[in-house]
């Protein structure tokens, strides 16, 4: 008998049907990948299972028990735990305090038995091979440790089923491996997992079975070892998906960006020359300096030495406005935190950067903004109803396009894209790649930083691998492959010793 059986689950929000009779079956001791694009209904289904949302119809059986009206406490008691993408930890509390929050051990006078809580936490960490100090303050932990702490918290509640919502988004590959080895161990002990992720390699490395949703409908399920990433992707996106090569070689112009011994927080001594129309991919493990360096070019992270020359002019350090005036634009990582102005409309979100450059002319030229908005909507293929809708009404991919428009609108010639496809579904990702190439063809110079190497393989003319704050390797388009890039980014270079990097 299956651990979890959800049948014919239906749910609609204000008349819009988001789950149209979907099903999901999870066996004991398996990792079940739940797949689908953003908006396919995965989160809604998980929220129904954990009692956050009531369902409109369908049956749920968990551990042999039919569940009627699920509440959050009830699902917790039954042994269902949800590790959210945005972690639900209290940063100012200690590790063990987080673990035992609301279930503290105390003596009969209400005094906390910290000793026992610490010991129990330590024991659990040791059993799993997790290196966390129970007395550390959560704010000081690395993201990967926080992720593991969330899982430990779930296990401590004797969860039989743990839902992991994109647990690897902010982890580097080493940390992912560690997480996976722990998950495998737990699986062997009989814990089941529902694994929500967009990353195919991870799904194929970890999951036993999968279920695919598309637009709130059940598409199919099966064993991972009987399918391929391509087949699963086609199930997710429908017939429209094609893995066709989008890259094409272009003629490059003169040098437009030059870095000389550029140094700052998290990176040092970077010298680089970039030509007009070039797409340079930057990659490296988290904290390797690639993102920090790009932010420093834009002035949003600290630079301490060296020079940046763009379009023949020296760009001042630590001044976003100065960088913008030099023709540099940056699409920052973490869209929700660094790009979205949630209370403002699509048009206001688009126009804001251009407005800071032309602030001396005080009145807003809404006629011109509207015209520009229309042009970018057409050019970037933004799917939106009215320019007066709030930005939050759009999907992640369309929001990102608005922010690309925000920067194109400043007439910047150098675009820095930091992790531009983060949290965007497969279909929209392909569109963003196509856009990047089109912009480069139109003469824009593009620096793109991403942790996803296939992304660089799709678009970059060359790839620069960062390690420990420096450039460790430069690869031409043909040379880029996942394995080599990975080796360089963990600091292994002997394999290809002798091959010197082509540019200084």
């Amino acid at each position: 008998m299956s651990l979890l059986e959800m049948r014919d689950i239906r749910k609609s929000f204000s008349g819009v049907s988001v789950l149209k009779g979907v099903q999901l079956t999870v066996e004991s001791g398996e990792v079940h990948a739940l797949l689908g694009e953003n908006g396919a209904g995965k989160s809604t289904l998980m929220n129904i299972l954990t009692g956050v949302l009531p369902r409109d119809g369908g049956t749920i059986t968990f551990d042999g028990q039919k569940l009627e009206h699920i509440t959050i406490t009830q699902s917790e008691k039954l042994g269902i735990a949800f590790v959210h993408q945005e972690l639900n930890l209290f940063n100012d509390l200690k590790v063990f305090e987080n673990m035992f929050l609301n279930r503290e051990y105390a003596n009969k006078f209400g005094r906390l038995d910290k000793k026992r809580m610490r010991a129990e936490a330590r024991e659990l960490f040791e059993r799993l091979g997790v290196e966390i100090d129970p007395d550390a303050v959560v704010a000081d932990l690395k993201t990967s440790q926080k992720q593991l702490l969330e899982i430990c918290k779930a296990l401590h509640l004797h969860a039989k089923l743990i839902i992991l919502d994109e647990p690897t988004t902010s982890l580097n590959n080493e940390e992912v491996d560690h997480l996976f080895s722990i998950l495998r161990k737990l699986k062997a002990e009989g814990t089941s997992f529902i694994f929500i992720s967009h990353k195919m390699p991870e799904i194929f490395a970890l999951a036993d079975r999968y279920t695919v949703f598309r637009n709130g409908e059940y598409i199919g399920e099966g064993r991972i070892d009987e399918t391929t990433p391509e087949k699963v992707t086609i199930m997710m996106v429908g017939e429209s998906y094609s893995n066709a090569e989008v890259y094409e070689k272009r003629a490059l112009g003169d040098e437009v960006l030059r870095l000389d011994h550029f140094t700052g927080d998290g990176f040092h001594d970077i010298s680089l020359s970039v030509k007009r129309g070039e797409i340079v991919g930057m990659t490296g493990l988290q904290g390797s300096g690639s993102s920090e360096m790009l932010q420093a070019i834009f002035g949003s992270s600290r630079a301490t030495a060296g020079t940046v020359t763009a379009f023949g002019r020296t760009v001042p350090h630590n001044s976003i406005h100065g960088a913008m005036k030099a023709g540099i634009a940056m699409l920052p990582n973490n869209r929700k935190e660094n790009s979205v102005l949630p209370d403002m409309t699509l048009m206001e979100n688009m126009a804001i950067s251009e407005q800071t450059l032309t602030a001396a002319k005080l009145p807003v030229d809404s006629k011109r903004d509207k015209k520009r908005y229309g042009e970018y909507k057409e050019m970037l293929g933004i799917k939106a109803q009215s320019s007066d809708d709030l930005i939050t009404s759009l999907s992640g991919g369309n929001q990102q396009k608005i922010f690309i428009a925000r920067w194109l609108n400043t007439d910047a010639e150098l675009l820095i894209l930091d992790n531009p496809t983060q949290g965007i579904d497969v279909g929209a990702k392909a569109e963003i790649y196509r856009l990047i190439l089109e912009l480069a063809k139109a003469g824009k110079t593009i620096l793109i930083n991403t942790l996803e190497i296939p992304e660089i393989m799709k678009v970059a003319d060359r790839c620069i691998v960062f390690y420990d704050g420096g450039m460790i390797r430069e690869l031409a388009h043909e040379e880029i492959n996942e394995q080599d890039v990975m080796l360089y980014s963990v600091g292994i270079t002997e394999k290809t010793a002798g091959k010197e990097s082509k540019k200084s």
Partner: protein
Amino acid sequence: MKKLGRIWSEYSFIFVLIVIFIVYAITSSGLTWSGVMNIFRHSAVIGTVALGMGLICLTGEIDLSVGSMLALTAGFSVIVFNVTGNIFLTLVFALGFGALCGLVNGLLVGGVQMPAFIVTLATMLIYRSFAQYFCQHVDRALIGGGSSVYKMDTANASYQTLFGFGNGKIATIPNVGIVMLLMTALFVYISSSTKYGKKIYAIGSNFKAARMSGINVSMMKISAFVICGLLTGLGAFLWIAMNGSADPATTGSSYEMYAIASVVLGGIAMSGGRGKMLGVLFGAMSYTIVDKIIVALKMDSLINNAIKGIILILVILVQVAGPQIRERFRKSA
């Protein structure tokens, strides 16, 4: 139904004013034109100050010092008037000194990045204390011979002109009310139709994203505090023009709270980024009418703040609970 809900949430301040006005019309025996115009007169100072507060709240900050700033600026402006006898210089001083007080707040909040609540709490104490201290320790002649009040020199040639401005009318509308309406119009324009306004909203909406869009967040915050100081200085000028004096202990007392309440009643979110400057005018006028109602009912004016507080809670209750009730209604339907 859905559309109505949206209009309610965006323009609830109009409904609030209408309801309060109807109560006023019923309670006051015989509604007169001059009685209604009086509302403008009595809203003028708080309305002007609240506009500045509205701007600061849109950026997600707060200014608790405006009441004390009003008293200090009004007191010193009286001295300037008594010394110079020049109305224009008095106005310039009031604006400049207010802006300076605002700049102090702005530099500490926007520049040093201290929490606005703490900074302006401190300057609230400081400005009020200065107002009271200097009133006791300057030459009596400078404060019109009074002992604990800054009094304008009534013998001064310009006094009648200034007092006349503060209490005069143009086409039956009080001058000070016109100043407030003009300021409201100006700030409605600034907030909705200028790039400066868009940047203010952007900062309140998400200051990190605003920074990454190229906005100089520190400068913008400093400017918002300076503008609030300017408006408070203007309020101080209107105050002395209307009253001919400023009492350092009571002038502007609790005005920071009334200003914040007007801003909230006007639909501006305290977290910033949402709301309309026009609402501030309606919020301030609603509160003035409450004063009038209490006078009309011959109630003890000590009950005043209780009623204002209750109205604030009721309006926010409807705003917060309204969507929840609607959602539940939809579920059961």
